């Protein structure tokens, strides 16, 4: 279970780095945070899991999406 979660986190993180659509990257990052929260919970750290879920999957996604609204959705450097 933990190995599967870690592999999923790795795949999503690489996708978030390599995609040129920033909105999809943000959603991938949010999913990474959600899976990390699940991982922390399975590893008996519920305090960290609550923090990770609230900060990583909740607030930081809101901030990133809000910033994308003012800038551009595509990464033009690629």
């Amino acid at each position, binding site marked *: 279970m933990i190995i599967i979660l870690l592999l999923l986190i790795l795949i999503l993180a690489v996708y978030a780095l*390599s995609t040129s659509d920033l909105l999809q990257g943000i959603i991938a990052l949010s999913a990474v945070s959600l899976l990390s929260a699940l991982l922390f919970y399975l590893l008996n750290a*519920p*305090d960290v899991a609550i923090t990770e879920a*609230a900060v990583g999957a909740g607030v930081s996604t809101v901030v990133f999406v809000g910033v994308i*609204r*003012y*800038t*551009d*959705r595509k990464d*033009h450097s690629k």
Partner: protein
Amino acid sequence: MKRPSVTSSAIPLITAMIAVAAVLLPIFLADTPWPVGARDYLQENGFGDSGAINLVSAIYLGYRAFDTLGETIVLLVAVGGTIGILTRSGAILAEGYTNPDTVAGIDSSEEEIPSFSLAREKRKSHALRTHLLEVVTAILGPIVLLFGFYVMLYGHLSPGGGFQGGVVVASGIVFLGLGNRMESSTKLTQAAVLGRIEAAAFLLLILASISGILLGKGFFGNPLSRFTAVPEGFIIMLNAIIGLKVGAGIGFMCIAILGRER
């Protein structure tokens, strides 16, 4: 604008992963036993010293409250910096990022970016808002807010605490701000109210921290431990204060970024 080939982008990625693995490998291979002195001491004395069953709360509000004060100051500086940048760059943001490839729906020629809580027909830019989002967040907002206060106030008994509860409260505030389909408005999404809550909570935190000095317990000492055997009241109070401060601060930041309420 040309996309690089797969191999040229994969080589630095694989190199970075191998480097990280080389750094982390000794940690997994080492068979040094973990130190147990602090753990045993906390299991024995943590509840009696601070009154918190959740030993994580006992550490960061009982033994290490000074670190928590530093964390709240870091958060204060981060929120202040974000608001400062947003204020200084307001003109640039309001002008809009003029790029022909911009996402459809964001009209960058509008001179005023709408406030966070306008009705649908009054909003000039709702590219990232849908009916689904508004309905769900309007219903979910108060529930998330209640759960945040639960996590905040029961931090000494169950997992959670001031910071975690505060962030959940901030999510609830953002939900309330996003989902106002019925034109209902709440004071909680106004920047001035949130700023005042944060400032008052920080003042209360400082007052609570020096209250231990007056009773001879030192900075951030638990003043209640002089009167009761299980002094959990101080941790509940600190959790509530820190939760209010974090929730107001992060909610303020999110609302400023999302809505630019002026």
